């Protein structure tokens, strides 16, 4: 972990006005996001807290609909508002609150400071522009580079993410690449300006298993090389176990457990995590309802009182239906939001 932004790899390092203190890049504090729709208010994020440091990989794990993408989009500032409303919380990047920052200033953080890789690279790349053009756009619009210099940089990035014959393919269009190659292009675009924080939202969910592993190791490599803070979103613990340092488990818009990967893997401290681990998804039911946890995630317009997980929880008692458990330290380096965390941890 370093405290010096000079470790960033860019050949033309733009002098960033953002300097992390003690390597602390991102602080998310009591983040709340609601969606105001015709049917009512869906409380998608209900008080999320976490920090991210340089060189650190944080995995966010949770079932589909638990609020992982919304968290990522809130950090990036790419939520559609409306319908999204952020009624509370702070997202501080190098000490500055992104949520209260003027939009123009915030826009300039997207790309050079914080960057994002999306799940479906085919739909996330613009179908009508060559991939090299789309990567080069980062240099042209943020660094004012001319067309040929920026394209040259695009080729280098494509080589860096191991796209074969990058020079020849820089003018090819997204549909002319395989899924894995497209995701590499997304990654090249996201790291183009050497961001301090990279968010990868289920970057391998749409890919074959073998390709998944390659993309994961590429992300890990880049993260180590550039000492980025990496947020790795997934619904599949198996995918991130080797790469992540810390894991935050999300349920109904809250973090219900947080721990180092190894500890959590060995000994979960929340019944939901336990359920997830017992049901490490089989390949044939990727993204589906997890077998070991009965029932469905709650409707975000009517989140149950008390612990949101209580209707599905085998540990649930009366207190779970009445009082919401806070995320508390239950053992060194272990946090869990469960009234019976001790039992779960040791039981």
């Amino acid at each position, binding site marked *: 972990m370093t405290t010096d932004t000079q470790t960033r790899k860019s050949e033309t390092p733009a002098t960033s006005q953002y300097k992390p203190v003690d390597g602390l890049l991102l602080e998310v504090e009591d983040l709340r996001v609601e969606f105001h729709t015709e049917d009512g208010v869906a409380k998608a994020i209900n008080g999320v807290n976490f920090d991210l440091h340089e060189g650190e990989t944080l995995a966010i794990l949770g079932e589909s609909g638990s609020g992982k993408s919304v968290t990522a989009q809130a950090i990036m500032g*790419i939520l559609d508002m409306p319908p999204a409303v952020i009624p509370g919380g702070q997202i501080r990047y190098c000490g500055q609150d992104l949520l209260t920052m003027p939009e123009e200033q915030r826009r300039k953080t997207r*790309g050079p400071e914080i960057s994002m890789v999306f799940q479906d690279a085919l739909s*996330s*790349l613009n179908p*009508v522009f060559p991939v090299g053009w789309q990567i080069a756009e980062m240099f042209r619009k943020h660094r004012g580079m001319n067309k040929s210099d920026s394209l040259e940089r695009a080729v280098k990035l494509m080589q860096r993410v191991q796209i074969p014959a990058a020079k020849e393919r820089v003018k090819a269009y997204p*549909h002319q690449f395989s899924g894995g190659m497209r995701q590499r292009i997304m990654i090249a675009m996201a790291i183009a300006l050497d961001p301090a924080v990279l968010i990868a939202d289920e970057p391998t969910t749409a890919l074959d298993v073998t390709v998944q592993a390659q993309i994961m190791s590429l992300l890990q490599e880049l993260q180590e090389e550039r000492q980025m803070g990496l947020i790795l979103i997934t619904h599949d613990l198996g995918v991130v176990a080797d790469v992540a340092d810390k894991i935050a488990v999300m349920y109904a818009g809250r973090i219900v457990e947080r721990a180092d990967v190894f500890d959590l893997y060995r000994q979960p401290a929340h019944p939901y995590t336990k359920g997830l681990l017992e049901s490490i998804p089989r390949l044939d039911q990727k993204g589906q309802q997890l077998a070991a946890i009965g029932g469905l995630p709650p409707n975000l317009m009517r989140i149950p009182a008390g612990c949101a997980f209580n209707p599905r929880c085998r540990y649930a008692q009366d207190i779970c239906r009445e009082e919401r458990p806070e995320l508390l330290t239950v053992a060194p380096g272990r946090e869990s939001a469960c009234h019976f965390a001790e039992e779960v941890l040791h039981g």
Partner: protein
Amino acid sequence: MYKYVIRRLLQMIPVLIGATFIIFYMVFSMPGDPTAGMCGDRGCSPAFVAQFREEHNLDDPFPLQYAKYLGNVVQGDLGTNFRNQSVGFELEQRYPITAKLALMAIAFEAVIGIIAGVLAGVRKGKFIDNLVLVSTLVVISIPVFVIGSVLQYYLGVKMGGQIFPVTYDSARPLQSLILPAFVLGSASIAYVARLTRTNLVENLRADYLRTAIAKGLTRSRAIGVHALRNSLIPVVTFIGADFGGLLGGAIVTERIFNIPGVGGFLFTGIRNHDGVSVVGTVTVLVLVFLLVNLLVDLLYGVLDPRISHD
């Protein structure tokens, strides 16, 4: 691509022959006598009629008439019509006017239609969006001769014809065509506006637009370059196809504004049972239409890299 163009050009031959055949046959079987009404109240003398019918091969059986005609066309001779006008010469005089009219109408479609569509799409559900939706619906539902006559009266007659000549004035040809071009393009302007709006709204929701914002691009660049470039693919295709149609002459608009274009010539030809004029004109129009459509298809391939013509 090269092979594709050749194939498309070869496909035009049977279409052209088929089209001339059908038109020729339809004119051939129209009831009535072309010499009727040619010589005033007294009627034509039998000698004149005989000579006229001889000159225009009217007594030959249909297949022979058609063969003789096609033979001339292949040699580049579109023939001489019943009023002794060279059809080729007439088209040469009239086609540039029709083409200008069509081009100007297309310009109106592209500029007004796209701007209105973008404004509406970007502010979906707001006042400007509703304004565009309602006004385009009105324009689309009013027949073109009503729009033409009304605009001719208010912008032409009432304003003394200074800015917009009431009818075609060969001394100010381009100026004369502005209002007619707007009238001619009006329905398509409305359609282009709606098409642009719909496509833009759809593309604003696309994943790649979210990427564009996440790249730190300005909203205007994300919309104006990334979303618009995608949204305009069907719009440009529509405008291109419409251009092919407008080059076929605008009978109604040309008559309202008394424009000496192809449409009027075709209209007169049909009224006079003048097969040579009709078939010659239609042949050229079909050819132009097919060529423009080929160009539009090629353009589509350029605009959307996912389309391949190999």
